């Protein structure tokens, strides 16, 4: 059975990765997951300088989902390279580093520093909803996005470049196309959807940041629709993210056109979620008598069957 997929020139042993911000720097999961079995590890977003993050409460649960406003807390580039990367390099998996900057220059400096560090890909976070400066405008302005992606592509020689798209746009296909035209090797989507929750007893917001990003099964139908739209708009690989907690969810994204998937909030419910999803995909392929995972990608049939009462 062939589970290999390619993200640009990067070959993954299977299509299951972790989503940035939900898997720490890998070490947090060492007793639950054999990192060697993952398609790729996407680490917590890295900025040039360390960021301390937002005050508490940073998370709150909502029906079938959760809001978070962590505020991009991270150890910064230098400590990542010195303290976190050596651990990850001890595994036979792909290392993808999510990066974020407040200016194009910061993205370029991060990209250059990571290019020769032994990682496999960078994922440009242009869509984090939880910081006032930076992030979101790169993801919602096609002109700026195009400039950012082409500058980063010019700055790197070896790493694959993935753009993580914001769901906060009216036409995701256009943004995926913008990233492709600017030279991106792949796009990943969706990031969390901005949301909020209020405690009606105290009359106060449930998050200190007031708003946060919604994730979990609650956003899966939206994510799936956007992945399907993006996959129809571009030829580069699309990486599907959003509410994937089991193998069935992952297969849905593959059928919608995703070449690979990222598991995020699902890791919190079940720290072994990625391993169970990889096993579940294999079981699915066996049951459907499919030898190659690539046959599943974009395999959605045109219309729903009549009288489909099974759902």
């Amino acid at each position: 059975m062939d589970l290999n997929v390619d993200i640009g020139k990067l070959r993954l042993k299977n299509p299951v990765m972790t989503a940035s911000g939900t898997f720490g720097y890998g070490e947090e999961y060492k007793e639950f997951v054999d990192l060697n079995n993952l398609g790729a590890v996407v680490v917590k977003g890295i900025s040039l300088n360390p960021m301390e993050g937002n005050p508490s409460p940073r998370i709150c649960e909502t029906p079938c989902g959760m809001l978070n406003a962590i505020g991009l807390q991270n150890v910064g580039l230098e400590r990542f390279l010195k303290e976190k990367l050596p651990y990850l390099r001890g595994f036979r998996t792909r290392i993808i580093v999510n990066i974020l900057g407040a200016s194009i220059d910061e993205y370029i400096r991060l990209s250059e520093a990571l290019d020769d560090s032994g990682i496999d890909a960078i994922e440009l976070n242009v869509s984090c909803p939880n910081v006032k400066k930076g992030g979101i405008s790169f993801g919602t302005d096609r002109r700026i996005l195009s400039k950012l992606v082409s500058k980063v592509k010019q700055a790197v020689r070896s790493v694959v470049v993935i753009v993580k798209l914001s769901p906060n746009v009216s036409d995701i296909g256009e943004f995926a196309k913008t990233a492709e035209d600017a030279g991106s090797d792949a796009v990943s989507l969706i990031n969390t959807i901005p949301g909020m929750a209020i405690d009606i007893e105290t009359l106060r917001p449930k998050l200190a940041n007031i708003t946060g990003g919604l994730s979990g099964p609650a956003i899966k139908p939206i994510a799936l629709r956007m992945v399907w739209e993006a996959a129809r708009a571009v030829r580069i690989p699309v990486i599907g993210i959003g509410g994937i907690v089991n193998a069935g969810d992952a297969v849905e994204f593959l059928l919608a056109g995703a070449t690979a998937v990222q598991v995020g909030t699902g890791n919190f419910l079940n720290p072994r979620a990625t391993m169970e999803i990889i096993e579940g995909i294999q079981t699915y392929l066996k049951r459907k008598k499919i030898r190659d995972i690539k046959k599943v990608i974009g395999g959605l049939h045109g219309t729903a069957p009549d009288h489909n009462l099974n759902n």
Partner: protein
Amino acid sequence: MSRYFRAKITENSSLNSNTFLLTVKPLVHVAAPKPGQFYMIEAGDSYDPLLKRPFSYLRKRGDTLQFLYAIRGKGTSLLKTFTEGKTINMIGPLGNGYPQPPEGMTPLLIAGGTGIASIFSFCEELAEKYVLYGAKTKAEILMMNELGKMDDRLIVCTDDCSLGREGMVDKVLNDFLDSRRPGGSFVIYACGPSPMLRAVSVIAAERGILGYVSVEERMGCGFGACLGCAVKTTHGYKRACKEGPVFPIQDIVWI
């Protein structure tokens, strides 16, 4: 021996109108917890509620683990409906737990309300200690039989004076410390509602007493990945689930 495991519920009974005692038997060999550590416990069979809930372990009894929980919201309301024989997923033991008292110092364990769950096993473990335990009413004082048996240096207080001394923990703590000879070498271990912990930390600072508090935060994962349970300390934000939940009392920046 993974810290992610399945366990069978062997008992889930009420201790008072709002507090329950959950007993589970892990289905695999699991690591033994230390006092002050906690477990993430699944509170439903669906994705609503989505996240596991953190609970201090109360005590280990043979091959079972016991937890105290108060009904607070959707998760705990569902948890209370779980009956004997049901299996649930759990993660644990998690967090750092209480450090041992330094040589020659007397531990003073302080609990407010269901905070007793966190310090109970430490009470059992320590040979020599004082225990100060407060709650709103007599009905909310839990595990009294076990505590009474354990030690005669137990001070109970209730806000309404329905059991033990009258008043909140901080007042009773001040009275207790006033009654001791100055220079007594106590080390405090406290768990309870935030206002109580803050009051205890003020008293500890005023009197120059060392100590530790176990804090409560909303948690996403429980094992250090989501960074959701940030606690503000004098050394920056720390994760309640990983660097905590037990912190040196003077390190917490009370908001």
